[in-house]
């Protein structure tokens, strides 16, 4: 649904987005990760037609965003980063405006408004003006606006920003649910959201894609991935060192597989334990941590700046 080819956006001498290419198909939820100022929002603004790209091509549902902006925009629901909404309008008035702009009238308009009000839990604030709303409600009002025409493509810039933990949870579930039938791309810098909602994640740093894959694939990039954490009576560092690098973690030992090792480490640890007569209290294979991967990939650049 979304196809991006070699997208570049410069602001003066600064390249905010520098040769980004990816696609998002229907049924996918793509998480867009990156440190602040890495080009996430700029990319999204180009996808939605707000910024014209310096070079490169974006098509949404087969429509070129630069050449047929109206057709492309009709397919997209967009939640901007600021979750901006007209402060002097009521929630209902604002949603009606959004519905009208999407060509919804009469019964279809009423149904669409009722649907998003329910989805985003806006019932209690329907007649309040937007400037009297708390941040969470304002955010959800803007999200409701993005969903009003049941778009095929959803572009959400930090959809959980400013929400409380319960609301975050609801929005993540909503995104996952919507992702079954739509192409969804959302940006975040909260890594747990990648696990909670994404089918695929793209890590972007300084305008370039530095890693992408399913959450599992990304975690496998972690130095921790494949390590075995063991707590056992009688275990010694010397014995474990024969399997790989050993580290003391709290009351347990953590063994890292040697670089390039293909076989899982657990059977070897178990065999060693049996041979040495250790009594195992806990044993776990580490999956790797996304935040560690994220830091390792993006930190050198941040420090350089």
């Amino acid at each position, binding site marked *: 649904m979304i196809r991006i080819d070699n997208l570049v956006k410069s602001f003066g001498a600064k390249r905010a987005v520098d040769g980004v290419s990816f696609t998002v198909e229907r049924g996918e939820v793509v998480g867009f990760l990156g440190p602040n100022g890495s080009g996430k929002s700029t990319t999204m*603004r180009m996808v939605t*037609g*707000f910024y*014209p790209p310096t070079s490169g091509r974006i098509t949404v549902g087969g429509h070129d965003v630069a050449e047929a902006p*109206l057709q492309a925009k009709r397919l997209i629901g967009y939640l*901007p980063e600021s979750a901006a909404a*007209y402060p002097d309008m009521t929630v209902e008035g604002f949603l009606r405006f959004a519905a*009208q*702009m999407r060509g919804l009238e009469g019964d279809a308009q009423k149904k669409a408004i009722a649907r998003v009000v329910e989805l985003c839990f806006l019932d209690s604030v329907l007649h309040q003006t937007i400037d009297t709303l708390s941040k969470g409600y304002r955010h959800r009002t803007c999200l409701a606006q993005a969903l009003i025409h049941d778009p095929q493509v959803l572009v959400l810039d930090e959809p959980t920003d400013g929400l409380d933990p319960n609301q975050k949870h609801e929005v993540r579930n909503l995104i996952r649910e919507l992702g079954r039938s739509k192409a969804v791309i959302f940006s975040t810098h909260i890594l747990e959201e990648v696990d909670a909602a994404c089918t695929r994640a793209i890590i972007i740093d300084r305008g370039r894609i530095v890693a992408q894959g399913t959450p599992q694939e990304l975690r496998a990039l972690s130095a921790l991935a494949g390590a075995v954490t063991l707590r056992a009576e009688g275990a010694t560092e010397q014995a474990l060192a024969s399997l790989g690098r050993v580290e003391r973690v709290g009351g347990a030992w953590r063994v890292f597989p040697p670089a390039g090792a293909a076989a899982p480490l657990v059977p070897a640890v178990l065999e060693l334990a049996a041979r040495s007569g250790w009594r195992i209290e806990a044993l776990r294979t580490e999956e790797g941590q996304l935040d560690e991967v994220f830091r390792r990939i993006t930190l050198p650049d941040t420090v350089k700046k």
Partner: protein
Amino acid sequence: MKALWIIAKRELSGFFTSPVAYVFLVIFLLIAGFLTFTAGAFFERGEASLAAFFGWHPWLYLVLVPAVGMRLWSEERRAGTIELLLTLPVTPWQAILGKFLASWLFLALALALTFPVVLTVNLLGEPDNGAILAGYFGSFLLAGAYLAVTCMTSAMTRNQVVAFILAVVVCLFLILAGFNPVTDLLVRWASPAAVDTIAAFSVVTHFDGFQRGVIDTRDLLFFVSVMGFALFTTGVILRGHRAG
């Protein structure tokens, strides 16, 4: 086309959901009345015309029209709603025209509410109502020209105050270029042809005809082109912000 009216409707209702509209209408009518009857010496003139009323409009609008238009784009940019608006399925021109027309209609309403002055002059004498109608039409165009200029300055900045001041300065130039004290001063050291050229840029010069009941195509064209130019520039400025 439909999107344009939806935007205009939203903008117009925005005036009335806040106190802006009511404050503006009251102030506008008070000042218009004061200028006409006190400063303009409406009764002392002893003639059945609205010259005392229309003559002040370039000055009256100088402050009040930028006050109406200053938030048009600067507020959208400051609040970030411009991102929302321009990613809806509309062209930038529909958005620019929609917002402009809404404010222009609001100014038309303010102007229409001055109708008691027409009743007064009809009660006291037998004025040329055709000339009065032409005067109203000219005044409406004058307000549109100022408003388009304000649209343009409003697109330049996120700050409403800056937009207001810039608009007042540009509109002041549009008045002074043809204001008699200024042209008299210019004549001393510039050729009459040059003075005429400068004066041709003035709204005062082009508004005069309307007040006398003459609708000249050249005057009409002047106001329409000021609006066209300013709104086109608004589009260029808005695109410039996004192009980076």
